[in-house]
């Protein structure tokens, strides 16, 4: 075991810390969230220049061959900065899927373009009826000559509005399969909207959308483990993002306790508040440990071990993030519930992370069920 970051990872952290401090001030971010697209193409270009968009991809396809720990460092910083650009959707989830399952031609067509910031991706997988059940998909793909025709509806697709290419899951006669679909293709209807945390997601309807044989990603009928793995990368990344937010909330709250005066003294003198603050810090440190474990296990090829660790981290961090978020608001008093202070925005993002890709109850259930095996 080794708890230290490499020199390259420390350099990456420094770069990200500087970027968030300099280029991502809260007021600018707040305005960006209200803009039409909801993020900045200029920032996206900066990410490309910094190598962030190439991070997890193989060197043969213009990538940097990074691992999930590298992604963790990026997401932790993005959490602190409340970064709005669809990094999670494009690079982490869809990007990993192409990396793991794409053919050489698909990787060649997509990964260098993603790394260069020219193309955005999104995984269109979850459906309303299935809630968090990854294996349940009603969207269908019918063989049509040399290609396929896709019909169905995908719900709350993260980054769906910005994506140039969607990776759509659909059932064929052989089972769950994945298809590349252009977001402007005939029959694709994308309804993009703002999410509670200022991000963007979309409802996507597919009506007899025609794609070629070369649109199939991975083996026909073999998509479930691929989707699970891509979502696990996404969960590990969100765990790191949550830890970044929790650490930022702890710092902001501690500062507030030291400066806000009531009854003639800083409110941090009151033991009831001191102990709450300590509980927040402990929750954050314990969550950091779980986010580290999730990152390391996300790269594991043992699917059962990986899934158990990812569910453990998501269930645990979901609870701790709720506690830290709620208490940060509480200790800020009225200032905790106003739009003009970053605290409420961190709290909202934490809350949406808890609800994304399986909430606490869902993952606690998955983890708990592994105890049934002898």
């Amino acid at each position, binding site marked *: 075991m080794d708890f230290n970051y490499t020199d390259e990872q420390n350099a990456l952290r420094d770069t990200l810390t500087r970027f968030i401090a300099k280029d991502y001030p809260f007021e600018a971010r707040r305005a960006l969230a209200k803009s039409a697209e909801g993020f900045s193409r200029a920032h996206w270009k900066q990410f490309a220049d910094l190598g962030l968009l190439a991070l997890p991809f193989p060197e043969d396809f213009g990538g940097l061959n990074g691992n999930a720990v590298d992604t963790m460092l990026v997401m932790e910083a993005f959490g602190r900065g409340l970064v709005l650009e669809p990094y999670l959707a494009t690079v982490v989830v869809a990007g990993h899927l192409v990396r793991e399952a794409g053919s050489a031609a698909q990787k060649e067509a997509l990964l260098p373009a993603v790394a260069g910031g020219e193309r955005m991706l999104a995984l269109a997988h979850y459906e309303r009826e299935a809630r968090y059940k990854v294996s349940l998909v009603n969207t269908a793909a019918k063989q049509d000559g040399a290609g396929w025709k896709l019909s169905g509806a995908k719900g709350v697709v993260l980054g769906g509005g910005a994506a140039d290419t969607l990776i759509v899951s659909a059932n064929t006669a052989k089972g769950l399969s994945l298809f590349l679909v252009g977001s402007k293709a005939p029959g694709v209807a994308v309804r993009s909207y703002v999410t509670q945390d200022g991000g963007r997601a979309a409802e996507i309807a597919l009506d007899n959308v025609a794609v070629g044989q070369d649109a199939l990603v991975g083996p026909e009928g073999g998509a479930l483990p691929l989707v699970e793995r891509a979502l696990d990368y996404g969960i590990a990344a969100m765990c790191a993002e949550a830890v970044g937010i929790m650490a930022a909330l702890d710092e902001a709250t501690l500062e507030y306790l030291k400066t806000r005066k009531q009854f003639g003294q800083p409110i941090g003198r009151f033991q009831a508040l*001191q102990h709450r603050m300590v509980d927040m*810090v*402990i929750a954050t440190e314990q969550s950091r440990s*779980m986010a580290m474990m999730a990152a*390391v296990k996300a790269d594991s090829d043992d699917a059962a071990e990986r899934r158990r660790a990812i569910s453990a981290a998501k*269930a645990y961090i979901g609870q701790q993030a709720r506690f830290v978020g709620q208490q940060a608001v509480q200790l800020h008093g009225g200032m905790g519930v106003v739009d003009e202070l970053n605290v409420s925005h961190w709290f909202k993002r934490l809350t949406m992370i808890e609800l994304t890709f399986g909430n606490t109850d869902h993952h606690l259930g998955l983890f*708990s069920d592994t*105890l049934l095996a002898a």
Partner: protein
Amino acid sequence: MDLNYTPEEQAFRAEVRAFVTGHLPADISAKVKHGKRLAKDDFVRWQKILHQKGWGATMWPQKFGGTGWSAVQQHIFEEECAEAGAPLQLPFGLRMVAPVIQAFGSKGQQEHFLPRIVDGSDWWCQGYSEPGSGSDLASLKTKAENKGDHYIVNGQKTWNTLGQYADWIFCLVRTSSEGRQQEGISFLLIDMKTPGITVRPIIMNDGEHEINEVWFEDVRVPAQNLVGEENKGWTYAKFLLGHERTGIAGVGRSKAALKHLKEIARKETSAGRPMIEDARFRDRIAQVELELMALEITNMRVLSAEKEKKGGHAMGPEASILKIKGSEIQQAIAELEMQALGHYALPWLPEALDPAWQGEPVGADYAAPLSGHYFNYRKTTIYGGSNEIQKNIIAQMILGL
């Protein structure tokens, strides 16, 4: 960063496992695994076996006979010992007085006491708390009068663990009433055979004799048994508590306990089905396991960072985090073990804790110790500085509140 064990660490685990399972006496591990009462000799025998291997005081600095293991190796060692059913290496000598003697004791004290701790010759106990001085330890009143070549000690210590077996006690005593109360405290090593010492049992909520009151009446202690300087004892006392708190996390032992809990949950039934199939109960086990998974990593993160920072010799206030979470987890597991028994948590059969007892158990053969264990383990969030005191330490020392 990599949280997977390296091949070297896996080989080390195999080596530790082979030794522990090969040398831990079967009668001792049977007592530990079945929650039977342990005798003094059980602890001492195991300490002597470890000592012969060179593993008697693995956590000590190498110049005093420690192994120089990394935090991960130390964790593996503790995990394997717990898994095998080894008795706890009691902290009073190894983790509490020894680091103080190493850091502040005279050469003579180091040469005399340290080898006798590691080879199991001396059993140490603690003289810190007093009836009027619990969390406010610095208010302690046990008095030591300086008579030149000796001190005369009068007073009363309490919450003294297993002092009925002890050869020596380390005591905080008041040597001055001038200035701040912290500035009048000294650290004395006292031979338990000295005339004037009386040990009186305090029976715990599980009916067991684990702790004592210790009375001192005109007890004569040679001046050479003073550690460090007179009136500097408070510094040494806090140093000691930092060391005590690290051991208190008890991750290895909690992992073994969690495994035991799962075994019980497979055997106990509800409406004919194993309790592990009851989702409401299973989720409670899962919840504790999540806490323990996080603590295992936090524990190694903190200990590894400390080792790099200070040569592994002194623990900072981060140890308080380990104490708080470790104790909460120990209590949660103990509570679920009791809950798993349902009605069979009610019978109290202290005779069943006797290793020689041949009687018929009431309910399952593993049931008898579990409720007592739950009651007993309420101590974990109280001792070593209550968890509320730990939060004060974190608030002041880490957060600057």
